[in-house]
């Protein structure tokens, strides 16, 4: 009799009364959730301390990798061979007056390391090209520079002198470094030999990272920060609903399903706030350059993490077993990562795939973080609202699913 009276008190009365009791129940639930978190200390330690640890290690690695390593090259010169003038076959020359000069330029360039020079006109270097290619195949050199037979002839008679370059393209990422290094040698060659008129390129950078900051660390942080924030918040929440056994019994009390879910969102949003704070603090302490506002950066990372929390909670709500939650988590995670643009640029994907990629949360991570870090943009923009939209949709679906879910006591 007394209990039913109490229940009446909880569930009846004015709207404000009901709201007051509902809030009170949510507060108690939040407290319970924190106690649950405290029980599994290891889980909390991993969630809070490991991400900053990884960032510190990555910062150390990026800082120590700032030394430029010259590209190892071999030069094969055919310049001393006989050049037959295509317009008059009776005219043959063996000019090689620019070969030595170009060699000097290569040796002067700090971006190149000359491993071997082959003069293909000499008998012992008759198979120079084959030797050089074998060297490149075995990884002893990264690039072959070929000085063609007509190089000196053409340059001396007012035609373009073209140096041929054969870079090892098996590592697509480093092809550009090789081209840049050879271009540097050409620049030195032109300057040292007064090959005027020159086309002087005056480079100015907008939104660049100041020289006192480590460029590589800052550049990679635009990838690592979103990846880390999204990943840790996502994985932390995938089991929170599905693994909680007392939910069924809890529903015998006046506690509502929505209150259970709200309390979980509150708790994991607070944990996320702490996670983002720690990750950001360690990143800044290790030399993160922020052109924009640090609050903007915090809020964007938080939003990204919140998208992770929403997706995790969604998976946890729609799953009937922990195994199912784990499966869904991994399927989502792999798809999100591979289509995030980290490994294959989104612009290189076909249109239908770009549409899918831009619907996923992590694809908006790097642009929003890069905008704040290097361009001083505000967090408010398309990417932020997209993340907010995804989170809202996931939260709504989670609540709908939770309300329709049946629990057996």
């Amino acid at each position, binding site marked *: 009799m007394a209990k039913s009276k109490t229940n009446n008190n909880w569930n009846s009365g004015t709207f404000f009364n009901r709201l007051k009791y509902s809030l009170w129940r949510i507060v108690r639930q939040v407290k319970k959730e924190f106690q649950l978190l405290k029980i599994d200390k290891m889980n909390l330690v991993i969630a809070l301390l490991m991400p900053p640890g990884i960032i510190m290690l990555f910062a150390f690695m990026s800082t*120590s990798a700032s030394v430029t390593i010259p590209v190892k090259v071999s030069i094969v010169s055919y310049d001393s061979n006989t050049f037959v003038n295509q317009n008059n076959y009776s005219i043959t020359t063996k000019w090689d007056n620019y070969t030595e000069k170009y060699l000097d330029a290569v040796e002067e360039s700090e971006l190149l390391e000359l491993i071997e020079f082959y003069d293909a006109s000499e008998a012992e270097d008759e198979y120079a090209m084959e030797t050089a290619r074998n060297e490149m195949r075995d990884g002893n050199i990264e690039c072959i520079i070929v000085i063609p037979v007509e190089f000196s002839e053409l340059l001396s008679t007012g035609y*373009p002198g073209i140096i041929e*370059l054969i*870079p090892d393209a098996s*590592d697509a990422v480093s092809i550009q470094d090789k081209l840049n290094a050879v271009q540097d040698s050409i620049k030195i060659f032109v300057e040292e030999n007064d090959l005027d008129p*020159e*086309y*002087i390129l*005056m480079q100015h950078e907008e939104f660049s990272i100041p020289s006192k900051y480590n460029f590589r660390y800052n550049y990679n942080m635009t990838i690592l920060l979103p990846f880390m924030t999204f990943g840790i918040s996502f994985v932390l929440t995938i089991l929170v609903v599905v693994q909680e056994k007392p939910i069924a019994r809890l529903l015998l009390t006046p506690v509502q399903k929505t209150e259970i879910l709200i309390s979980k969102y509150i708790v994991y949003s607070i944990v996320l706030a702490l996670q983002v704070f720690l990750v950001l603090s360690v990143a800044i302490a290790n030399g993160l350059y922020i052109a924009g506002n640090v609050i903007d950066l915090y809020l964007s990372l938080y939003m990204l993490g919140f998208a992770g929390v929403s997706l995790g909670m969604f998976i946890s709500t729609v799953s009937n077993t922990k195994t199912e939650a784990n499966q869904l988590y991994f399927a989502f995670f*792999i798809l999100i990562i591979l289509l995030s643009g980290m490994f294959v640029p989104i612009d290189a994907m076909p249109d239908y795939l770009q549409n899918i990629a831009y619907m996923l949360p992590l694809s908006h991570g790097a642009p929003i973080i890069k905008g704040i870090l290097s361009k001083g943009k505000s967090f408010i923009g398309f990417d932020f609202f997209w993340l907010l939209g995804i989170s809202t949709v996931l939260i709504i679906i989670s609540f709908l699913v939770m309300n329709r879910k049946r629990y057996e006591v």
Partner: protein
Amino acid sequence: MYLSGLVKKEFGRIQSDKRTLILIFVIPIILIVIFGLTSGGGPTAYFNAAIITRDKEPCDCYNSTDGYDDIFIDIVEDECEAWGLFEDFESEDDDDYDKIFDKCVELLRDEIIDVFIILPDDFSETIINDTDTEIIYYIDGSDQQAKDAVEVALQEPIGKFRLEIGKTVNFTTMSPYLEYDVPFWESQVLNYAFALIASMLILGLLMNLTSLSIVSEKPLPRMLLTPTAKDEIILSKLIANTIIMILQVTEIFVMSAIFGLYCLGSLFELYLVLLMTGFCGICMGLFISAISKTEQVANQLYMMFFITVIMFSGAFINIERLPLAMQIIINSLPLSHSIPLIVNITMKGLPIDYAHLASLALISSAFIVMAYITFRFKKVEV
């Protein structure tokens, strides 16, 4: 006898979880189909540019003329493979220039363009007079890829411009011929990304499959009341998961071949490397499962391992540039061996590098030994 029974039991457990099995085999198919059907993605950078020409502005120089700027703009617009012209602006005086400049900075900020080029007021005059010509450009300094590539890329319009106007005296340039690249008729996205994606996918999926295998098994404590030993339990898990891994790697291998895998070297050796990577994933997963007390911890640890393995794979930073201590850390992670092995076999046609393969075997052994030791001393309550 015990072992075969335990392996059977493991298969029963994995089979009962059919959806995991389906996911393990379906995810790679979806991804390989997606990347296999994706065109483009070669190693060439593409620049979307704006050009501000000040050539029409009066200049205090000998032989005042203009007109070469239009030729340069036309070449950037129509004749360059690595360049596209977003818009060209003609400045008439300093005020005009300032306004256009601000507009271009905004375009750069919004990433509508990658670079804007400024042709100075004496552009045509320097060309006529055969003196040095300055070309000024502003690039997005936060875009490392664009920043690294722009100077070489600018040689294309400059070279074509010099040929067009017939001013080739003393012009020196380079012409690259890529060696060991993926031919343009092959699926470049799949093949350039294959080493990273295949090894990451195999490692990730198998780590995920095994990272819960010990921690989530409820009958384990009761099983220890029988004569079953802990080493038999862990060995049975290793065997059962290895069989699943062989099937999965075979599937990835066959699907990649169907969707345009470009491999100059031995397919058998490539298959062996993929198997070894998968085995590494199983050992790492078992280690995670052995040290975790709850499934939540195992999931968290899995995520941390996965992030670490990817970020320290050598794909983001050149390992050679690092100090020895960092090189040791990176070399103790599997992707730093799998990726070069796959690249060397597929793109260069090299035979298998046994040093890298042995490293993968060593890493696997280290993780499985650590998993066994941890499991041996783990206390389980019945």
